[in-house]
């Protein structure tokens, strides 16, 4: 039992170290390949943790290899746009000027209802109000509202009041 306890501590520290190296992003913000590596690391750590028949290195070596690969991939995707495109994909426009792009929606296997749900969650009730909606590489939907539907900004307010003052 004490062996399992010690092994768990070692593997816990290793997983914490690997997650620390992976960066400060939360699960929703991870790129697909980063999410896969996260799942693999957690799965690899449990095997030698549970079974003392497996040597500790059978868990440590693959975890460390995955971390190094992750670092190399991140570095390469930072340096080369082509590699980034292969690893992370590209953002896809699903709404343009209030019109849904069904072709792109189909490509993403994104249901019409899912899109409407995402829009509602983003504070938009009508597709017509959207200037542009883009599904980002991490799967999140970015919504850019048309000028007439977007909330009032400080710049807008200054413009309005300066116009008013000018008329006076």
């Amino acid at each position, binding site marked *: 039992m004490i062996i399992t306890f010690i092994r768990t501590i070692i593997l816990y520290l290793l997983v914490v170290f690997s997650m620390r*190296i992976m960066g400060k992003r939360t699960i929703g913000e991870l790129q697909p390949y980063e999410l896969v590596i996260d799942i693999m690391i957690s799965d690899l750590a449990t095997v030698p943790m549970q079974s003392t028949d497996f040597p500790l290195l059978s868990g440590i*070596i693959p975890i*460390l290899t995955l*971390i*190094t690969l992750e*670092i190399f991939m*991140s570095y390469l995707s930072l340096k080369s746009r082509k590699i980034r495109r292969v690893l992370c994909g590209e953002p896809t426009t699903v709404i343009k000027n209030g019109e849904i792009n069904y072709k792109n929606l189909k490509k993403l296997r994104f249901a019409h209802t899912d899109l409407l749900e995402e829009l509602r969650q983003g504070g938009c009730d009508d597709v017509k109000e959207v200037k542009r909606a883009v599904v980002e590489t991490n799967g999140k939907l970015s919504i850019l509202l048309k000028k007439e539907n977007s909330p009032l900004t400080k710049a807008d307010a200054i413009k309005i009041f300066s116009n008013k003052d000018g008329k006076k």
Partner: protein
Amino acid sequence: MRDVITAIIILVLIISISVTFYCLSMNFCNDMSENLLLAKEAVEAGDYTLAAKYSQNCIDILEKSNLWLSAMANHEELNSIKTGILRAQQFIAFGDDEETMAELGEVSGLINHFAASEQISVENIF
């Protein structure tokens, strides 16, 4: 850039550990197989003192390699090898030819299997 340097160091460390373990395991398998073969020949010749000496050599090799071997190999497999040799030693002590040969054969098989599973080959990779 600091992360990349860390990754390179980790990678070099992993590769060197893997290569070292591979060489150590191959040496271990060769030494064990050699001693097991000599033990078998001694049993066939009826020289139980010599057979006991070679089987003890196997135990010594196993004990000496225990630290790195247990960090690398499946513990169940190692236990099977060790109990196999201990059983063979008992059979040698009682002068039981057939059981000794069977036990030594089984341990040889386990050692060969261990060596085969550590070989860098397409079969093992897939």
